[in-house]
């Protein structure tokens, strides 16, 4: 006990630095809030790291296959799609075997769908915490995205195996993965923020999510390529930001030319959507504890 006391006194001396002043006001919908929110978030960077690591640990703690689960889902989907679309019916894939073609798209898609599924419930499943302690709530959905990003890296190991097996070699195009992944992360974050905030009031969002994701996948060039979409639908089709993201993720991996048109559309949509979704989230956050 005496030791703890001494610690406290020492800490007391050290604490006489400048103090941060915080002002709490009713919520407004302004750019200033955006800035304040980001500053608050940066103060909790460590929590994001710890919580994301926690997501991974929990997932693998009492499971036998552990980390392999990051790979099992995309690989299983790849196998079934390869069976359906290259054995039962033939889908033309330019230059590469279907398995590689499909897996290259399943990587970003699995990231997106896993993130969204988990993040949508991010606030609701932590109601206990949310009503007891303050921390920037966006950390909850975002931590699932960070964890999914790690899964994406692990699943990529299988991709390299596939590429070696089928003699598909990497080209300098692979550098495009960096901007494409950034856009993907931004769009995923925007969607996660919106859906997790809506889920607090309307639980239907979570119910609908598996169906929505299934439809969304077939509305994105995962099992087929962008070029196979009829010209007359193309303009509408491209409004789905996942189109530009998935098509170009695959192009970068397989060394195909980048489709800049779709990439620009996805980028612009994501960049506009992200701050708006954040403001919306922060607005819901202010009273989330009263509703949840």
């Amino acid at each position, binding site marked *: 006990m005496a030791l703890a006391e001494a610690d406290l006194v020492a800490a007391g001396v050290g604490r006489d630095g400048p103090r941060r*002043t915080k002002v*709490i*006001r*009713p919520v407004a919908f302004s750019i200033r809030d955006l800035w304040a929110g980001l500053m608050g978030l940066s103060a909790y960077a460590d929590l994001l*790291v710890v919580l994301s690591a926690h997501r991974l640990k929990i997932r693998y*703690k009492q499971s036998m296959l552990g980390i392999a689960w990051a790979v099992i889902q995309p690989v299983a989907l790849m196998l079934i799609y390869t069976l359906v679309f290259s054995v039962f019916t033939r889908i033309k894939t330019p230059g590469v075997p279907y398995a590689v073609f499909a897996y290259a798209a399943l990587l970003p898609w699995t990231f997106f769908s896993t993130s969204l599924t988990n993040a949508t419930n991010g606030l609701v499943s932590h109601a206990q*915490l949310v009503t007891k302690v303050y*921390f920037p709530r966006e950390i909850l959905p975002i931590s699932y995205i960070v964890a999914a990003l790690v899964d994406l890296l692990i699943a990529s190991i299988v991709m390299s195996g596939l590429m070696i097996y089928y003699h598909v070699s990497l080209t300098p195009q692979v550098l495009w993965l960096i901007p494409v992944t950034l856009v993907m992360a931004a769009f995923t974050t925007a969607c996660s923020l919106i859906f997790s905030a809506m889920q607090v009031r309307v639980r239907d969002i979570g119910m609908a999510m598996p169906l929505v994701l299934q439809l969304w996948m077939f509305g994105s060039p995962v099992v087929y390529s962008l070029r196979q979409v009829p010209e007359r639908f193309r303009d509408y089709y491209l409004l789905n930001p996942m189109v530009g993201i998935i098509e170009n993720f695959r192009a970068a991996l397989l060394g195909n030319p980048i489709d800049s048109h779709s990439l620009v559309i996805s980028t612009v949509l994501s960049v506009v959507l992200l701050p708006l979704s954040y403001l919306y989230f922060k607005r819901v956050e202010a009273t989330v*504890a009263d509703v949840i």
Partner: protein
Amino acid sequence: MSSDLIFSNVSKRYIVRHEVDDDATKHPWIRKLNALRKRRDEFWALRDVNFAVERGETVGIIGHNGAGKSTILKLLANITAPTSGEIVINGRLSALIEVGSGFHPELTGRENIFLNGAILGMGRREIASKLESIAEFAGVKAFLDVPVKRFSSGMYVRLGFSIASHLDPDILLLDEVLAVGDAAFQEKCLQRIEGLRRAGTTIVFISHDLAAVERICDRVILMRRGEVAATGNPRDIISLYQEQIEPSRINTMKTAVEDDRAVIESLAFYTPSGLRPSVFHTADPLVARIDYVAHEEVRDAVFEIFVRTGDLTEMCQLTTETSGSPINLPVGPGTLEFHCDELSLQPGMYHANVCVKERLASEAINWQYHAATLRVDPGRITRGQFYQSNRWKLLRQAHSATSAQNGAGEAERPPATRRPSLTPTS
């Protein structure tokens, strides 16, 4: 002096949704549709609340349930936003509210310390440097690498409090957290809080435990229906609050059973010397005095006092039924006193009900609920449900036969231990 917390014109409105009660004769689909259209009611949990807390001050907030105490706590902790007004917080604030809610059962103690610490706003490096001390304080040092699902509930609670209390905040919010753990750990917590207080931490303490509020706080704010009703020194405000509970000490009685033969006018607690203090202490002597008026002669009457806690648990009974000679009440007023040598009740607030009946009758003649409030503060500190009065005697002292004689006798109560000092004595 600068203010650490400022509430200016803070209001908080809650929207309460009611299900629309619907006609069962309608088609189920129509009822379902109507159910979506819920009635909205407004409820103002706080209305134009203004107060400031100075640096280094310990302020208590008391009031009935629904007076706005916990809303203030939630607003301060930033868990929810005010509807209007402004709250200024100078410095790092942390709240000790229901600790341990952020634990994950599958993770080890160590992992949970990092997780929980981060949730409470500590950096990883800060947690790493305090890890030892946190585990030490919680007494779980040997179990750091065990999943917390294997922890006992006591370890769980202790670890939660230990993490939170290592925050070194400038401003500390305290809920009813002191009610956790066993008596020894509670004492440890109190010492910890006292340490923070001496280190200059500003503390806001929100509690029903009036004794604890009076012990810890420099100033008390009394809330009533979402507004600040009064603020001032603890003794005054607490007695004001107690008068609210029972506006005049005598007339809060609710008559439960009444026939006109005899009426209990009042019940009050005194010291043997006839003083009427607002507070008693465990192991103090106590006199309970009943004033009554008999309108008809009552033969073989029995007086009884039931002492209950706030949640209506019956703690003890004083009765004339099983001792002494039969009581016959002549017409006219009278007084009856129960004398207790040592009060067995542990610290807390108690209510007393009182009744008078005929020994063999099934119905009481007169029964008064909430006839008096009894506040007990820590006196002779013992653990357990109640204080057992006792004497002790040392037998068979090995070396000196004479000292055995000196050591025997009643356990003395030195004045210093009557009210526990808050400074660590160990």
